């Protein structure tokens, strides 16, 4: 189900690695219907296939092949929470940048276009920096800076606006789950090789592009020595704090897991607002490391999500992990890859 949203493995596996042993490829077909206030496609059939021989991936939406694969991104919107997501809070900034990129690229075409341009430009500038060390002119790297500044400014502006828009919601959800301290988030912009800064939310993209262009120019000589670009949105962080303290260092395992779940609920809210359809929530073993009170509070938040949260699918290793009092959810069991209802129907 997550594949039909991101068109790739949510765990980061390559398409070829997902093919069953001995088979030529794989094929997924999903039919989704959306409720919602904003006009949304009433029903949509999305099919995605991969052929091992040609290494080709093809997607069809309502029977038509989109011009670009990225046009089908978010065709069946869903949000996945996996146990490794706690790493998003406790680990390095790369996982949090990926979270921001996925959340914003699936809801903003402008962000997606800027992200593709920025990544391509970064690869070219880094290649130029390394050839520079072998004696090529500095202009080869400088030539890529206007494009990086323009696309990077869009990433900075949209990330900053997202943090401002959803910050209070993160605090509200965290409190509802039972967090006693105030949970806050901050977008740390890397515009100097030595330190981070906070994006001025009033800054226009043109001003941000100016800041980034100046930072790239100032850092160029050092970048040549390192063989890599050290400033820009690819070095940003999303800093999460609990009661003013960095959750990465001071949060308990349960608090970090709760924050990761709250971030996934924010992702669902962003998708709901951006696509007009309430995404399916796929939660894999969310209650490990959590006491029963918190587990119940999370279920209440999911159940009381109103329009933001669509269908919720929880996967738990033991039936007892879901409090018995919660009877709203239909229960199924999976054994040997076959889903069976409680009454034994497959």
């Amino acid at each position, binding site marked *: 189900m997550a594949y039909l949203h991101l068109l790739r493995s949510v765990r980061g596996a390559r398409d070829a690695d997902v093919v069953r042993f001995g088979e030529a490829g794989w094929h997924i077909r999903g039919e989704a219907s959306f409720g919602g206030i904003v006009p949304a496609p009433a029903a949509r059939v999305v099919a995605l296939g991969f052929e091992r021989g040609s290494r080709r991936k093809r997607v069809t939406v309502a029977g038509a092949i*989109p*011009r*670009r694969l*990225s*046009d089908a991104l978010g065709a069946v919107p869903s949000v996945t929470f996996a146990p490794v997501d706690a790493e998003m809070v406790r680990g390095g900034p790369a996982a949090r940048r990926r979270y921001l990129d996925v959340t914003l690229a699936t809801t903003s*075409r*402008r962000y*997606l*276009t800027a992200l*593709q*341009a920025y990544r*391509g*430009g970064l*690869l*070219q*500038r880094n*290649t*130029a920096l390394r*050839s520079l060390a072998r004696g*090529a*002119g500095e*202009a*080869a*790297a400088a*030539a*890529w800076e*206007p*494009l990086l500044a*323009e696309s990077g400014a869009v990433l900075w502006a949209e990330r900053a606006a997202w943090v401002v828009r959803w910050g209070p919601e993160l605090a509200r959800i965290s409190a509802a789950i039972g967090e006693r301290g105030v949970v806050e988030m901050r977008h740390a912009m890397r515009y100097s090789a030595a330190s981070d800064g906070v994006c001025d939310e009033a800054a226009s993209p043109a001003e941000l592009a100016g800041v980034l262009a100046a930072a790239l120019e100032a850092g160029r000589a050092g970048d040549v020595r390192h063989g890599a670009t050290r400033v820009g949105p690819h070095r940003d962080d999303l800093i999460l704090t609990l009661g003013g303290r960095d959750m990465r260092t001071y949060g308990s395992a349960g608090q970090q897991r709760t924050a990761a779940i709250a971030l996934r609920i924010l992702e669902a809210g962003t998708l709901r607002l951006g696509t007009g359809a309430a995404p399916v929530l796929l939660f894999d073993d969310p209650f490990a490391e959590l006491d029963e009170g918190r587990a119940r509070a999370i279920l209440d938040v999911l159940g009381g999500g109103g329009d933001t949260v669509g269908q919720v699918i929880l996967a738990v290793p033991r039936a007892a992990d879901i409090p018995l009092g919660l009877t709203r959810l239909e229960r199924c069991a999976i054994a040997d890859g076959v889903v069976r209802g409680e009454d034994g129907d497959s």
Partner: protein
Amino acid sequence: MSAIDELSAEFAKLPGIGRKTALRLTYYLLKRPPEQGRRLAAALVTVADRVRTCEQCYNLTEDPVCSICRDGRREPSLICAVEEAADIGAIERAGEFRGVYHVLGGRLSPLDGVGPDDLTVSQLVARVAAGAVREVILATNPSLEGEATALYVQRQLAGYPLTVSRIARGIPVGGDLEYADGVTIAQALSARREMR
């Protein structure tokens, strides 16, 4: 190496031609009257000997200055910068542009080993610095490398009193919005213009 292998190896160096197609072309020529092969060889020699780049705009020509640059009816103060000489043909077929050209000789791509020094950007700046240019239209392809090249050229021309413009991107004429891709529609919307 036999003569057959030598010819097919040369064919295989051409873009879009693999080893099999190269062999097929070689055997095709061998089946034709020898005269056809000689005509092809003569045409290749003529092209290699006579065609060079224009001293002003770097278009391909058999003369020191190309026919477009020599044409007195064209507007020399309006320069359209393109990646390759082949792009001139595309614009000329449209029959709308009455200015002159500047062939950049490629586009920036360190991954392919192309940096600013490999392009004719400094020659374009020199043309502008010589005066009498009122506008440079950047008509590089709307790809990542084409955009980076356009932005780079724009920065190089920033200090001169002239207009630097970029060709528009958007929905093709006769196209259907329903079938246009999202990126194109987004760019067409952001580059919309007021109807007068």
